[in-house]
């Protein structure tokens, strides 16, 4: 499951990192995003959240890629030993000469532990910094302190939903029913339920604060979302992210594989709408009314969006094709956990028997 999730993270980040380049217009000048002094002697402004983005995304991508690739090395070694011809050569290079000595296993596990500790704070920081791209700007409904945790919660929420869909598809396509069990979907469904509640709480807190403040520019954006031209999208978002998934995930009988996939599918749609509603309506209603306008996506933007989704699917399918999507060696370790527990129980019982046999003799 970890590998399924990490692959989503890495591919989503890789695609997301292309967006600043796409939005540049003159994409051949992408290196201006990199913090170095240009030929005009202009240094990047470290007070700009866009520069923070560069560092946050680079760190997160490096960390996620490492967290994804390190545990794949033993699995690549396994594939290397079974493959023939060109495939064997390729996997021999990828396996890096892994043999499975105690030293290699121990160092791998230490590295994985360090990465597990490191990647979580980086994940929180990267989503917070992306939220600060908005929150640092004086735009109605963006300049909010709640944006940091709101974005972190949103990322976890949509991430779990995407993971459930990916797991269900992989399970069906690669016949992994024995490994990805209903229990996994049930547990992820519970987590999704918690995140759905957290998400609706954030939405309520954010909107209540804006409504209570009653500032004209903010209220213009607020009402355009609540009951104006974006109302359909807003209420669809509420249905997709809360009203539909909540009962499905809350009722145990409905929290099946099919149920969690349906809930996740609506959540992915809802979270996309949420991002659209964060970006577009406030930009249409900035503080100065002469700046107000309306937005309609062009065919170029629609094509880029569709291309992004297709790109994500293509990368994931290729990954599932060429890499063991489930960590084989971790699975083996999990299978051995039961006999070890049984062995421990047997040892404890034996010790207890010996103790019992010695007690009467000492008392007598």
């Amino acid at each position: 499951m970890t590998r399924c999730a990490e692959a989503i993270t890495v591919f989503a980040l890789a695609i997301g990192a292309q967006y600043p380049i796409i939005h540049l217009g003159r994409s051949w000048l992408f290196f201006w995003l990199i913090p170095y002094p240009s030929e005009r002697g202009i240094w990047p402004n470290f007070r700009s959240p866009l520069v923070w983005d560069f560092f946050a995304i680079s760190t997160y991508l490096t960390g996620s890629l490492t967290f994804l690739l390190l545990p794949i090395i033993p699995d690549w070694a396994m594939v290397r030993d079974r493959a023939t011809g060109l495939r064997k050569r390729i996997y021999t290079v990828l396996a890096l000469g892994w043999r499975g000595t105690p030293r290699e296993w121990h160092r791998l596990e230490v590295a994985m532990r360090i990465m597990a500790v490191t990647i979580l704070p980086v994940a929180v920081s990267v989503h917070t910094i992306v939220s600060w791209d908005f929150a640092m700007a004086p735009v109605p409904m963006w300049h909010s302190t709640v944006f940091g945790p709101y974005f972190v919660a949103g990322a976890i929420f949509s991430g779990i939903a995407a993971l459930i869909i990916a797991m269900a598809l992989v399970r069906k396509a690669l016949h992994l029913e024995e490994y990805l069990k209903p229990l996994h979907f049930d547990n992820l469904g519970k987590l999704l339920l918690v995140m759905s509640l957290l998400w609706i709480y954030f939405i309520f807190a954010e909107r209540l604060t804006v409504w209570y403040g009653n500032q004209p520019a903010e209220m213009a954006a607020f009402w355009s979302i609540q009951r104006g031209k974006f109302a359909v999208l807003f209420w669809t978002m509420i249905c997709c992210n809360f009203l539909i998934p909540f009962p499905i995930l809350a009722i145990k009988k409905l929290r099946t594989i099919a149920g969690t996939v349906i809930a996740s599918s609506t959540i992915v749609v809802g979270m996309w709408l949420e991002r659209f509603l964060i970006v577009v309506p406030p930009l249409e209603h900035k503080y100065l009314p002469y700046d107000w306008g309306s937005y309609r996506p062009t065919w170029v933007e629609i094509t880029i969006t569709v291309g992004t989704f297709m790109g994500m699917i293509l990368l994931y399918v290729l990954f599932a094709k060429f890499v063991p999507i489930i960590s084989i060696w971790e699975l083996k370790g999990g299978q051995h956990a039961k006999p070890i527990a049984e062995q421990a129980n047997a040892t404890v019982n034996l010790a207890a028997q010996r103790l019992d046999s010695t007690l009467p003799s000492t008392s007598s």
Partner: protein
Amino acid sequence: MIAIYGLFPDANSARRALTALRAACSRFHLNPKAIVIMSSEPLEEEGFGWEEERTLMPWLAPLGALVGAGVGYALSAFTQRSYPLPTGGMPIVAMWPTGIIMYELMMLGAILTTIVAFVIATGLPNYKKRLYDPEVTNGKILVGVSELDSACRAELEQLLYQDGAEQVKEFSTYRKYKNRFQVTT
């Protein structure tokens, strides 16, 4: 290098062979470091590899993090001083944004140090011909001796079989041995 090794079906028989090999080190003039174990999964819980547990990796990562944070401060402070923006009396080197860069580079420092430490500690990548058997990935546990004195070959083979080895094989990096022994590449 000539090596002899046995392939064991489970951890118990492999552990027995390992104990026997260690006990026989002085008898066969073996270097204890020449005893090799390989498996398709970590066997620390089974009592293998406890001697490998000492590593500086958990200490190097925080050290890398500190260096990363220092680089983050140096980069942002140097940049802000090199191209001072009008700040209306506020500090040129602003600590809030500098703190964010420091944090990100601190984490990057920890990650990169971990990668480098892992690569150095495991000696990977290594594409040289080394003692290995593909049966390891089929679940067999390899226990053997890598620097073998050919005089004690037969006794070691017997010892490995006695402790439950399913197969005992020989491995050599020398070409001349290719026809003499069963060579696994």
